[in-house]
């Protein structure tokens, strides 16, 4: 947690978020400020502490493997930006061979 220099463009790429140059400057500074604040966690003795996985006592939740009705396909596709037939329509993903 020592360095607070964020490569904000790299993080934005990982997050699939296009940022303008102004946003890179703004969010970069705000995130570095936040990381200064969260660095105080280094003061806590956490070496022998178990990380919280869940806050309530609960074991694996299982159910019988039986089919139950799903939402009607047409209803779900009606909420999509683009649908075609029984599919979500997306831009081309695999490039044509050049």
């Amino acid at each position, binding site marked *: 947690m020592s360095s607070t220099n964020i490569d904000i463009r790299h993080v934005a790429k990982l997050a699939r978020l296009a940022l303008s140059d102004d946003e890179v400057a703004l969010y970069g500074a705000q*995130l570095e400020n936040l990381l200064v604040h969260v660095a105080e966690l280094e003061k806590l003795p956490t070496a022998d502490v178990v990380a919280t996985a869940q806050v309530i006592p609960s074991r694996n939740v299982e*159910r019988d493997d039986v089919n139950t009705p799903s939402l009607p396909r047409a209803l779900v596709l009606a909420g999509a930006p683009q649908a075609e037939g029984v599919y979500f329509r997306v831009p081309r*993903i695999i490039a044509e061979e050049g």
Partner: protein
Amino acid sequence: MGPLDRSAAALARAVSARELTASEVAEAMLTRVGERNPALGAYLSVTAEHARAAARRVDERIAAGESLPLAGVPLAVKDNMCLAGTRTTAASRILEGWIAPYTATAVQRCLDAGAIPIGKANLDEFAMGSSCENSALGITRNPWDQTRVPGGSSGGSVAAVAGGLATIGLGSDTGGSIREPAAFCGVVGFKPTYGRVSRYGLIAFASSLDQIGPIARTVEDAALVYDAMAGKDPADATSLDLAVEATAGFDRDDLRGVRIGIVAEFDLARLEDDVAAVYRAAYADLARLGAELVDVSLPTADYGLATYYLIAPAECSSNLARFDGVRYGLRVEGDDVGAMYEATRAAGFGPEVKRRILIGTHALSSGYYDAYYVRAQKARTLIANDFARAFERCDAIASPAAASPAFPFNAKSDPYSMYLMDYYTIPMSLAGLPALSVPCGYVTPPGSAHPLPLGLALTTPLFAERSLLSFAHVYERGTMHAERYAPPVLTEVPG
């Protein structure tokens, strides 16, 4: 008192006794919402047809001899919860036109108990914020002072209940998003134990913290809503498979035999003098009502903010990956699928959501995961352990629900100053504990024409909702703060 200003309990009794019909209540409330909502902005959309249809069903069930705990009670639903056939936006451009294809379990259970869905209430975008100012779709004003924020993120549901535009509301609380706005608007806001209420149909923000809870004008009403909603739901694997005790019948007249912890680290001297005086008086009232006040310590509570602002953004960055322009909401075209994702998310998310996605993505990224995310989850364990030790010495903890009354619009322009608003509510969220805010007094800050409410937070051990609500009920009945003043919007606006 007209039916619209009665408690949910009284209104449900009157409708069940057929003194008035749910349809009459629904029509009267829709008329009032038409008059008042343009000024208050509590609702992003008014669901008149759903309200009328639900009211007709309630009237049929009452005519058939059923008795319903929320019969004819007008309900505000935070707009991050699905109600089939309604626009459900999370107050985000990315979902602005999306129609929910199904109904959230918590909402459905309220409808099954007789509630009437009046509208979908405003919130900070994806529930990220403490003032409702992060909504991309509208401004919500505090019914006590319309130059001030209602709090957030459940600001719309809370403003609706405080402003007489609903009798009860549903909010969601991730780091304080029910309790802080309830304090700011002078109503009761209750976050149950994590897992008590199904999250099915709640648009996810931070899944290990998100919890739906009731907003109401009395503790009894909050208990009625909780009793209707709580319990196992097969559609949410994290919902608890534990028997839910009815909480709404209160069996206690005082707090004799109850030990209430006062947290040493929550030093009231850090607050403004008038605010601190209200909290000192509230603690004294708990003692006057019979409680034994004991000092407790939460040594790691001060690390709550840092812990939360790693864990919640990390979970948010993962949950919000689903908004990619493919399955729902906005799409902005690009040259290829990657450019389409990036352009859609750039156009669809507001600044606070982008900030949190970036923080969370960084905290989870290769090389930083152990230093940030894992360390925060270890700090979370220490915070939960602090509460467990404190509860060896007391039955409940009393603390401020917020450091101040509602603040003016645009007063917290720096993101971190807004994050500080959650200081008193985040530790309980990290530990999964049941907690609520109940009105505890008023202050009149310079420049405010009216007294503004403050809220007392009460917290109990995991699953101790029944104790929590009964303690709060005794405090509420023993102090009657909500009866001292009413929001000006209730007395100045006709209807």
